[in-house]
């Protein structure tokens, strides 16, 4: 059996457990968990399923906050830097998970740990200091209330070590704003599921790590041969230099297909953003590219997609920071109808500085801007702030109010669905969320993208299988035989992409190096060889996809089923996108057709081996993966389908 193989390399070897209620620390062997899941998020999921009672709420001390570094992180595998942060989602009550790159994960591995599991709640603000075997829970009174940027500076000065790496929360997380992120290296966000809010609820400001140790692989020569193969593939991949130079074609081409396929405009009123606004935002003379002063990379990453920005003019002059992504355009520009480059860049950096999840910001603020436009909320609700499309200063002010819970921001901070219930007047119809998680994603034009967002175990985010047509899919040669805007064969490709993402998150490989649209120069063949040569176990590509990837997904699916009332009907797009067609542009008239989405869901569940009628897992599926104990848990709740 695959999961009984003994792992001989790549792992640091220990799981660190910190109990903030009892002020205690202990470790356990990570190998048995990694043998079942390959590592990373898989280990977090196993522990959460095993230890969190279904009656637990996200805000209870019994909820766990789990950091899981991918099993290949710390080695020379290109782009192996990723960390999973899992907890109960503050939005769905089910499995929460966010993923982040940077340099924190490798530092934890060199310190000797694959995962850190935070239990309990501290009575006062604390931070955790980890330096190899030395693990201390320290007072954080001197940094509580500080922004993420200031906290980094203060901790570096206080600890006197430039090489420490820090995962932390900002004022938003401290204030338990639902959409708060755990920030790493100041500009990288583990944003989804409100993991920063959970960290704040535990009175945990930061986890500081310094590691002096090493990572060994089972067969170094074989391992390095595969590294060399990946470097050759990277050198031959035409998208790699494009990513390295400017991340995406959004920087260079106002007619790039992505503008029309994945941009949702004015909170979902349209899926077409006017060309003149694209040009104003992204032109090289006065647009976002003119504010970009350099490019940077995450740890051992040959893709190098991170912009470093400096605003050198206008109201926000003097602002500096890393990061400007496709989601910046999706959430802070098109969705807010905001075409001013300085405002969009500043809003993004401010979001990082306050420790907010940018998708949450873009989603809930676009929603209240539309409510204001429709007269559902008025100046009385906004304390005189005019929430009109394109009003940059109002956008910036609302971000601050959200993080510091002021006025309307306080209402939104407790969750958008909850806010809609209080505002009432039909406001929830205009709120784009999946299972409570606010979303900036498109559903009407790109069908495979929409299907993956609908079915994501962490709800409402696109990285669990979204596809954008055959010409941007998978390993070369392309194209695969499907179009982004058709319903045909989307489920097949979405499941393939979701499975490779499971592997990437458990191995810790960035999907911009891995198999997703981007530089995506790596293949399943590479993954299997790294597992074999690095971890010293023998797997095939088929083993990875049909066993390990399926285990990962089924663990999260089971957690959701056990902890929530989610069923098949929650896997449909928000009602608005099923009823209101795109108003303009090349995809005018496009809709998230309910019957067609249902057909995609039928095929999707079948491909995973789940019950088509309910969306629940089957005994045959779970026992085939060796997840007998999970099947029993589901069976006891009456949420397991006995016959396939």
């Amino acid at each position, binding site marked *: 059996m695959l999961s009984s193989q003994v792992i001989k390399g790549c792992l640091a070897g220990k799981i660190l457990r910190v109990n903030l209620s009892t002020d205690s620390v202990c470790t356990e062997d990570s190998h048995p968990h990694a043998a079942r899941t390959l590592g990373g998020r898989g280990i977090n999921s196993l522990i959460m399923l095993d230890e969190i009672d279904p009656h637990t709420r996200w805000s209870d001390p019994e909820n766990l906050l789990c950091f899981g570094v991918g099993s290949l992180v*710390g*080695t*020379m595998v290109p782009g192996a830097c990723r960390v999973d942060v899992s907890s109960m989602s503050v939005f769905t009550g089910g499995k929460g998970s966010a993923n982040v790159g940077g*340099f924190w994960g*490798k530092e934890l591995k*060199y310190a000797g740990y694959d995962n850190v599991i935070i239990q309990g709640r501290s009575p006062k603000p604390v931070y955790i200091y980890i330096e190899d075997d030395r693990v201390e829970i320290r007072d954080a009174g001197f940094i509580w209330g500080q922004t993420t*940027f200031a906290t*980094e*500076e203060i901790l570096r000065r206080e600890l006197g070590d*430039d*090489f420490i790496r820090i995962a932390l929360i900002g004022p938003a997380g401290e204030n338990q704003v639902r959409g708060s992120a755990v920030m790493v*290296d*100041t*500009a990288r966000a583990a944003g989804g599921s409100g993991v920063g809010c959970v960290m704040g609820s535990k009175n945990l400001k930061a986890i500081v790590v310094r590691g*002096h*140790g*090493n*990572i*060994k*692989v089972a067969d*170094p020569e074989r391992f*390095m041969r595969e590294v060399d193969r990946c*470097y050759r593939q*990277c*050198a031959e991949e035409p998208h*790699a230099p494009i990513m*390295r130079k400017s991340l995406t074609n959004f920087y260079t081409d106002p007619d790039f297909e992505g503008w029309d396929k994945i941009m949702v405009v004015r909170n979902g009123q349209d899926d077409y953003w006017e060309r003149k606004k694209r040009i104003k935002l992204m032109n090289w003379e006065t647009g976002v590219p003119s504010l970009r*002063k*350099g*490019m*940077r*990379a*995450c*740890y*051992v*990453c*040959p893709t*190098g997609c991170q912009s*470093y920005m400096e605003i050198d003019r206008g109201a926000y002059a003097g602002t*500096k*920071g*890393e990061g400007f992504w496709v989601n910046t355009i999706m959430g802070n520009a098109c969705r807010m109808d905001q075409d001013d480059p300085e405002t969009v860049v500043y809003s993004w950096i401010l979001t990082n500085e306050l420790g907010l999840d940018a998708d949450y910001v873009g989603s809930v603020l676009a929603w209240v801007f539309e409510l204001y436009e429709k007269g559902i909320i008025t100046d009385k609700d906004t304390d005189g702030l005019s929430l009109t499309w394109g009003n940059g200063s109002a956008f910036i002010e609302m971000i601050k109010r959200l993080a510091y819970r002021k006025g309307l921001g306080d209402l939104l901070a407790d969750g958008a669905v909850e806010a809609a219930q209080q505002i009432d007047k039909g406001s929830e119809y205009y709120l784009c969320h999946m299972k409570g998680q606010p979303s900036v994603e498109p559903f009407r034009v790109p069908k495979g993208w929409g299907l993956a967002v609908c079915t994501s175990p962490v709800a409402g985010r696109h990285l669990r299988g979204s596809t954008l047509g055959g010409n941007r899919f998978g390993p070369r040669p392309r194209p695969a035989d499907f179009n982004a805007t058709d319903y045909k064969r989307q489920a097949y490709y979405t499941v393939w992409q979701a499975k490779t993402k499971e592997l990437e998150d458990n191995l810790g490989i960035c999907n911009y190096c891995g198999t997703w649209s981007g530089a995506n120069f790596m293949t399943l063949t590479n993954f299997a060889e790294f597992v074999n040569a690095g971890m010293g176990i023998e797997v095939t590509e088929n083993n990875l996809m049909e066993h390990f990837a399926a285990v990962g997904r089924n663990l999260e699916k089971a957690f959701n089923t056990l902890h929530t009332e989610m069923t098949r009907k929650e896997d449909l797009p928000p009602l608005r996108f099923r009823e209101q067609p795109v108003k303009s542009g090349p995809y005018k008239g496009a809709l998230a057709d309910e019957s067609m989405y249902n057909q995609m869901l039928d095929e999707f569940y079948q491909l995973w081996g789940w019950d088509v009628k309910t969306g629940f897992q089957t005994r045959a599926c779970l026992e085939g993966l060796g997840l007998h104990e999970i099947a029993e848990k589901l069976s006891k709740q009456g949420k397991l389908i006995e016959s396939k």
Partner: protein
Amino acid sequence: MKIQWAKEKCYACGTCQLICSYHHTGSFWPDCASIKVLRNPQNASIKWKLDSTCDQCDGEPEALCAKYCVYSALIVAADQPSEIKETTDA
């Protein structure tokens, strides 16, 4: 052989430090590398340091730090003596 760092090309990914440690130890152990890379994400400045333990990749067919730098930020000048230096763009 002299390793030269072209700061304007560096993305601060740390790959040179990691492969250097592999040369010295046969494992991935950045603390044991001859190269140290440090980056300040708030102003994007990078410090790149080569210390006296650099053996110009003795026994390797080429300098590994330059081989694995996809950003062409490390250049090997074969006919020049090695130079120990600390450089920063800040």
